[in-house]
Every structure is written in C-alpha cells, then in structure tokens.
C-alpha cells in the first residue's frame, strides 16, 4: 500500500466491528467507552486492514470507468491472461498476518501508512502446486509521527486453486 492518510472514523469502526460480529460498546458507544479503561472509542485489533478504503489505487475495489473482474453479464468482466488459482484478478491468497500494537488506536486519530517490501520465498504445495510467498511490512504512524501499529502480512500466489479435502459425507 502506498503511503497515504488513513483517518480513523467512529462510524467506520462501528461498521467494521459489526462485520466481525463484535458488539462490544467500546467500538460504537462514546458514552459507554468513556467509562472503560480505554477511555473512549477504540478500534478492534484488525481494524487497520480497512486502510484499503483510503488507498486510491487498491486493486480489490471496483473503480469508476475501469473494468472489474467480478461477474455481471458474464462470469467475469475481464478476460484473464495467465493461470493461477485463488487469485481471481491476480490477488493471491492471504497466508499470514501479524500485528504489533504500540498504543490503542482511537477514533479521531489520523494515520499515515508506509509499506516496505519484505522477503519472497517459494514452496511446493500439496494441494495447489507451486506457492510463491511474499511479505510486506506496513507502519502506521499517528498525526505526531509516532508508531501506533506495525503490520506484517504474507501473501501467497498458487499455481492452481487450492484442492478441497474430501467432504465428510464421502468419508
């Protein structure tokens, strides 16, 4: 992800917490949150993932005037070149995600994200052919330039879709 501004908005936190099935008031009720140890609305642990919303070039979001690879009239809006399962539009799958929290992330913070590329490695997968792993580290700093969250993600591209283990019924 390119360096960009990521405003931490209370409404966004509320929607994100709902989507992960978390009804803790510290994520949506300012009055209740004030009385907790957090002292106000904070973001759930994986919230920085939604910085994608503020990345103007994020490739897994349809954009005005550009082709999109999901279905419409046809099963895909884009003729794909090259193989590779799991990737749909070449996105690959998410293999690992690691966070370090330097302080709680609060509604009202404005973060800047800077991403550094990490290692790349290959492995032969049993269920999906050759696997290519690549790592990236993103530092989220606040309005004062202080580190709030460090995120390390590992993505994987597979040669073909991941084979599914036999269903229980067949066992």
């Amino acid at each position: 992800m390119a360096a960009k501004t990521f405003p931490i908005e209370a409404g966004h936190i509320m929607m994100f917490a709902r989507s992960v099935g978390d009804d803790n008031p510290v994520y949506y009720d300012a009055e209740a949150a004030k009385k907790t140890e957090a002292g106000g609305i904070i973001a759930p642990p994986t919230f920085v993932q939604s910085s994608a919303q503020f990345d103007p070039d994020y490739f897994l979001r349809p954009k005005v005037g550009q082709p999109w690879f999901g279905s419409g009239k046809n099963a895909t809006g884009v003729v794909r070149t090259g193989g590779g399962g799991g990737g749909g539009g070449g996105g690959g799958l998410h293999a690992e995600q690691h966070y370090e929290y330097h302080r709680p992330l609060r509604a009202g913070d404005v973060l800047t994200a800077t991403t550094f590329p990490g290692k790349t490695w290959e492995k032969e997968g049993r269920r999906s052919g050759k696997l290519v792993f690549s790592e990236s580290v993103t530092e989220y700093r606040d309005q004062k330039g202080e580190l709030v969250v460090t995120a390390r993600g590992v993505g994987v591209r597979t040669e073909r879709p991941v084979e599914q283990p036999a269903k229980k019924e067949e066992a």
Partner: protein
Amino acid sequence: MALSASKLRVGETHTARLVEDLKRTQIVQYAGASGDYNPLHTDEIFTTQVAGYPSVFAHGMLTMGMTGKMLTDYVGDARLTKYGVRFTSQVWPGDTLDATATVTEVADGVVKLDVSTKNQDGVEVLSGYAEARVDA
C-alpha cells in the same frame, strides 16, 4: 476487565464460539467494512465458474477479526500488544467456528497466548499467538 497475572496459570484456556453457520451476508458485510471487494468472497458466479472454487469463501481477515473478539473479550479492551496468525484452511459459508486462547507464559506484566480457531469438523482454520498487558 483486564486479567490478573497472579490468577493466570500456564495451560489454562479460554474458548468462545465465533460464529454459527456463517452467512454469505456477513462475508459481504466484512467486504464492505474492510474495503476488500475481491469477488472470491462475494461473487458466487465468478468464484465457481472462473476461479474454480466450490463456493465463495471468507476473507482470512474476517476469521482473524472474529478471533480478535475472543481475545479482546478475554484480555480486556486496549490490552493487546501483539497478535499474529497463519491462515491454515479456508472458511466457507455454513461453517461454525470456535476459537481458543491458551496461556503459554505469564511474566513481567504480560501474558503470552497460543491462539487456535477450528471449524465444525475440528479442522484448524487459523493458528497464531497473542500477547497482552495484564495487571499484577
């Protein structure tokens, strides 16, 4: 409520049901909130006919997010200092997930936890760790 180091024992566990019969609508909800609109998670036609999977499946980060609720309910708000996972198997609509944190170490005001989330067949879908600040 935060945990207290003096009451924690290595090997003790905390388990929570994350979701029962995961709905496609929740996956759509996560796509909208997180901004990850990959059709693999929301577009059955694309995913079955083009990508070659039996159905749409959940974002790994949805599983990590749901597992995060188990952790923050256990260790308290604003207490986590580290949380990391590997996605070990895909999560499908209809899955029921349970997550467990196991205490591996308590020292210097910090609890270390092993984290594991399994589906209704006992298959681990997420494997990881967390650390949190605890009271004395």
